[in-house]
């Protein structure tokens, strides 16, 4: 297993009530697998599953993107800065 740190921003931080999570992922996990585990663990994320953006090592990732060991993961809604 691969224990990863997850940073949460904006709505997602408010929904889960924390800035950081730890999750244990299988060694060959992808972003899709991470999302599945998250929604299973935190059902309140289910409605926003499709709009959750995932950054792996500070780069936008797709559902197929692998999650390397020790990666910095961030979850957030579509950006709204400016």
């Amino acid at each position, binding site marked *: 297993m691969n224990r990863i740190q997850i*940073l949460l*921003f*904006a*709505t997602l931080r*408010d929904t889960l009530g924390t800035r950081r999570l730890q999750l244990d992922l299988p060694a060959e996990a992808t972003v899709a697998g991470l999302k599945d585990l998250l929604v299973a663990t935190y059902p309140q994320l289910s409605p926003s599953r499709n*709009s959750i*953006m995932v*950054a792996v090592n*500070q*780069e*936008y*990732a*797709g559902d*197929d*993107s692998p999650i390397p060991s020790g990666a910095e993961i*961030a979850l*957030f*809604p*579509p*950006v*709204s*800065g*400016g």
Partner: protein
Amino acid sequence: MEFPTVISITEDVLDLDALLAQVTLDSTGAAAVFTGMVRKVTARGEAHETLYLEYEAYQPMAEAKMRQVADEIRSRWPAVEGIGIVQRVGRLHPQTPTVLIACTAAHRDTGVFEAARYGIDRLKEIVPVWKKEVSPQGEFWVEGDYIPKPGE
């Protein structure tokens, strides 16, 4: 000579004159600058009033993406000399500037206006910053409608 790229995420009051000086070279004759401010009164879409906005950033990624926006500007408008991109975060009240995009060049017909416009458009697409709107009716996180591709 290296062209200056100034990237910053700050809680401080934005200083347009200082940013402009940082992106002005001996060969610079023109600058186009975009500033966004907190609107107190919004008429477009669902009309509403804003007490303040609360901005937050995923800072290291946001800085990297702001640098990417600057790189994209340079590849599209090679005449651009200096680029400054500054996002203010924290609690910002109506009429307060929240973001600055400054592009300089030798002359004004070199794409500086288009470059500044592109800069703010791209910042709003790919730079991980969010704002929470606080109004007399309550508060909610604003969500953009752009989904970056992997690696974008």
